[in-house]
């Protein structure tokens, strides 16, 4: 019988708006914490996976720093948080064939250092500026957009947030949802996730509750989305270890998170900044995830708790519909009628998600999915024996006990 995969370790560095440590230190700290959690040493690691296109610490560099003896598999996965299901899927398959026993996935985020502060006063050394000189130097020409963005950046489509605004506008058009009701749902998500963070000691926004009035006063960043609808942006790292179930010790007093099923997903036209698809209001559709539930041997109704990738609050609506937890075009109703909190039928983003807990590109959410299985969350859901993690392009992992 093929070996079954478990999530044997979860770990993180400090998470804060600014940290002095460099990315490499953060990554190493998180990976070592995850290995400690799994009861493993660096020499046990057979495989390392990273986020392609985002990760500042090269996989080869981390491998050298960690003190791995020999890698039997490695890889980098695109599409941001979809790297998580892709890496877990790959690791689980290699675990099943016996090629590897322990695989690490890591992600570190480190903002560039602040530019040096300008001198408080010009001082004696500063030469006097000639009266005829312009007050401001001519603005340097910005670097050209990369080829793939050359039909987007010149128009001001320069950040994922711009795409979120376009998708949200399209959602309003397609669903006919009144703006006021849409805002009620987004406010409920944002305020609810802030409340969840308030009960979570490690959450970045644990001490920053949000009132509805404050939500309404938050500036429109990408109409109809407000600043408060967007995820956190801070320094920190996180890591997980995927292992063969028979290669790790049973956890003392708590269940081990078993990988019931994991799958990457990418359909043409779904990549970030793709504008051509007619269902731009959606990220993905329930039928596409049905095979994953079949493989996991559970139905959606058996899912006790879900972590849905939330680069913005609107994405929670898209994910609820896309994974089939809400009927198509009815996520607003679900949020307003049932809520997503601890007492709701399906608690979502239980310790605040990317909006209020942390933003480690989905790994923070995946780690919470594991905690729920173990029964160690700061906001533990009762009998959380099936725990779902969903990524934006449609990749997902279903964990069980």
């Amino acid at each position: 019988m093929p070996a079954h995969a478990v999530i044997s370790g979860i770990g993180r560095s400090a998470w804060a708006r600014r940290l002095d440590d460099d990315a490499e230190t953060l990554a190493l700290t998180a990976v070592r914490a995850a290995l400690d959690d799994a009861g493993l040493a660096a020499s046990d690691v057979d495989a390392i996976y990273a986020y392609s296109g985002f990760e500042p610490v090269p996989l080869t560099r981390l491998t050298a720093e960690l003190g791995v003896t020999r890698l039997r598999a490695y890889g980098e996965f695109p599409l941001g948080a979809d790297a998580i299901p892709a890496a877990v899927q790959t690791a689980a398959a290699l675990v099943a064939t016996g090629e590897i026993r322990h695989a690490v996935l890591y992600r570190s985020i480190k903002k560039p250092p602040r530019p040096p502060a300008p001198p408080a006063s010009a001082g004696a050394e500063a030469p006097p500026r000639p009266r005829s000189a312009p007050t401001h130097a001519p603005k340097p020409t910005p670097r050209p957009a990369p080829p793939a963005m050359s039909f987007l950046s010149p128009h001001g489509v320069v950040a994922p947030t711009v795409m979120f605004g376009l998708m949200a506008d399209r959602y309003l058009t397609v669903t006919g949802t009144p703006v006021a009701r849409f805002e009620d749902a987004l406010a409920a998500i944002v305020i609810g996730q802030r409340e969840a963070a308030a009960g979570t000691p490690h959450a970045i926004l644990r001490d920053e509750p949000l009132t509805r009035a404050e939500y309404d006063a938050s500036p429109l960043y990408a109409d109809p989305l407000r600043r408060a609808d967007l995820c956190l942006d801070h320094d920190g790292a996180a890591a997980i270890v995927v292992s063969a179930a028979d290669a790790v010790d049973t956890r003392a007093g708590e269940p081990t998170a078993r990988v019931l099923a994991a799958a990457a997903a990418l359909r043409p036209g779904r990549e970030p900044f793709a504008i051509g698809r007619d269902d731009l209001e959606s990220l993905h559709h329930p039928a596409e995830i049905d095979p994953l539930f079949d493989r996991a041997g559970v139905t959606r109704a058996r899912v006790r708790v879900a972590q849905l990738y939330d680069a913005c609050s609107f994405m929670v609506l898209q994910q609820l519909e896309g994974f089939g937890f809400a009927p198509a075009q009815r996520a607003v109703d679900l949020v307003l009628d049932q809520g997503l909190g601890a007492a709701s039928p399906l608690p979502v983003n239980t310790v605040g998600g990317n909006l209020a807990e942390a933003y480690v590109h989905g790994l923070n959410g995946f780690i919470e999915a594991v905690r729920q299985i173990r029964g160690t969350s700061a906001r533990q859901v009762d009998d959380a024996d099936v725990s779902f993690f969903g990524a934006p392009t449609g990749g997902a992992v279903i964990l069980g006990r």
Partner: protein
Amino acid sequence: MSDPIPPTITPRTAPFWAAAREGRVLIERCRSCSTPRLPVDVACPRCGATDADPVEISGRGRVFASTVIGYRAHPAIADWVPYTVALVDLDEGPRVAGRILDATSRLSAGTAVEPAFVPLDERSAVIAFRVAQ
């Protein structure tokens, strides 16, 4: 107001940008299935064929989606804020992104727009839009 962020101009895309500098909208049409596309796509998004012919179109179209950006999304265009950007289904072409120069709020899907050319340098201009009169 700052110039748009310039594109990377490749031999393949140079005719598009040069035509825009002359106030023309030049796209490609798949030689196999006639699907129009921007030169950003090497292969036809519908049939996968790589051969295409240049074709000049009016550049008029209708809004598919729009948003108003109210924060400094990129330092090079900080003085644009707030600006309206839309996805426009060209009447005779593909869906494209474009700034709507005369809009201060989101536009209803289906709003008719016409091209407005914002010169960048001697060899290129960015195709933006105005609400059609």
